[in-house]
């Protein structure tokens, strides 16, 4: 048995003092803690504080121009696919993958022609992910709808479910593949908003870059959840349109002047 000490426990005082100091710092400077939290979120992967989206101004989309299609297919290795030997033109053109395509609309009454690129619309509630039996179709936290080829079994339910005809199936063995765009027979694929670029910290897609390079600037890409981003400001300033808005999928790709 030791004698009860006359001195107060200084360790305890130290601890209480430090705790109060930390609490005070947290109250006084919440910004600092916020920054720390954000850094951690980045190293942990994509965050739902971002939602990537696209705004297409169909007035600026030029008839006959395919620079977005070309750039997309070059970026994602779609143009490396070879036609299987002996396959007919009709079959090849019906089955070859396309991540983005040009659609031309003409109003019969007024004769107004509208050109627009159509790709995966990156729905908030993607029907492809709803029907996928293996969970291969999924929506990333930042709103990008993707296919995990590791779990895709090639059943093509998602292709049937997609109202935008945005998905393609790889029918043949693929000889030439890119590191950034793996591809193989028996899986479904579609536009992923150039996810390899986004993960590398870029904020452009190949189609947007190509369209701007052509001088058309019809495609605007950015963060829908950032109120100060160019796309958010544009969406706020002018009316936009979702294709098949009646399905209430809340698409990430919007169109103006459609």
């Amino acid at each position, binding site marked *: 048995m030791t004698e009860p000490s006359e001195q107060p426990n200084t360790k305890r005082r130290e601890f209480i003092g430090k705790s109060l100091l930390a609490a005070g710092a947290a109250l006084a400077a919440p910004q600092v803690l916020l920054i720390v939290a954000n850094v951690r979120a980045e*190293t*942990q*992967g*994509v965050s739902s504080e971002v939602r990537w989206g696209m705004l297409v101004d169909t007035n600026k989309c030029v008839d006959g121009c*395919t620079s977005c*299609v*070309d750039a997309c*297919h*070059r970026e994602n*290795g779609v*143009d*490396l696919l*070879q036609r299987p030997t002996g396959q007919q*033109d009709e079959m090849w*053109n*019906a089955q*070859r993958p*396309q991540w983005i*395509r*040009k*659609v*031309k*609309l*003409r*109003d*019969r*009454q007024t004769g107004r022609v509208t050109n627009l690129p159509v790709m995966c619309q990156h729905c908030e509630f993607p029907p492809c992910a709803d029907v996928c039996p293996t969970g291969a179709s*999924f929506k*990333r*936290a*930042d709103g990008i709808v*993707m296919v*995990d*080829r*590791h779990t895709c079994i090639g059943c093509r339910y998602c292709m049937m479910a997609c109202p935008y*005809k945005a998905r393609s199936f790889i029918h043949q*063995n*693929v*000889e*030439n*593949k*890119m*590191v*950034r765009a*793996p*591809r*193989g*027979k028996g*899986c479904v694929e579609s536009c992923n908003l150039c*996810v*390899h670029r*986004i*993960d*590398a910290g870029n904020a452009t897609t190949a189609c947007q870059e190509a369209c701007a390079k052509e001088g058309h600037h019809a495609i605007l890409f950015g963060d829908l959840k950032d109120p100060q981003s160019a796309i958010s400001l544009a969406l706020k300033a002018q009316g936009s349109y979702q294709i098949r808005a009646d399905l209430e999928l809340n698409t990430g790709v919007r169109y103006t002047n459609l």
Partner: protein
Amino acid sequence: MGTSAGIRGVFRILWGGALVVLSLSVQSGSAVTPGSKAAGLDACVAPTPEMRRNHMDFLKHDRSLTVHQGIRDIKNSLAGCVDCHAAQDGGGGFKPVNDTDQFCSGCHAFMAVDLTCFQCHRNTPGEGDATTASTGPGSVETIQPLESLFESPTDTLHSDTTLSQHQIDSRRED
């Protein structure tokens, strides 16, 4: 009784010796393909015995992180395997890592384990697209120029996906 136990003992010794010889031959440094970047390095991203036993788990874990969470600056990546372990073919390019007797397939054939990574993933270093084909190593010779894909008169990619007048009319009338 005595003789059968003796025979068993001899067999045991022989079997043990065979295992030792086999493990020594596998443990030797010859598994790394000569002429690859890995041949000039001391170790992989983890000690060799750990890599031999666990490389498939490393890849499977990190592929989910990459695809679903977008984390790409990770230690274990298949592209990293290919970069280091592909042997040069002597002509400025690389041999595919899954070719017979190359790094991946050599061992996988020995272990009778199917290797399906490269049905989808690129099996040589470099990107292999049109921009790097002319300069980078591992260039692909059979790339078809993009223009020929889109400008050939038989190509109906765009007209095929453009809505026909009838479809447009029927939609506008709806």
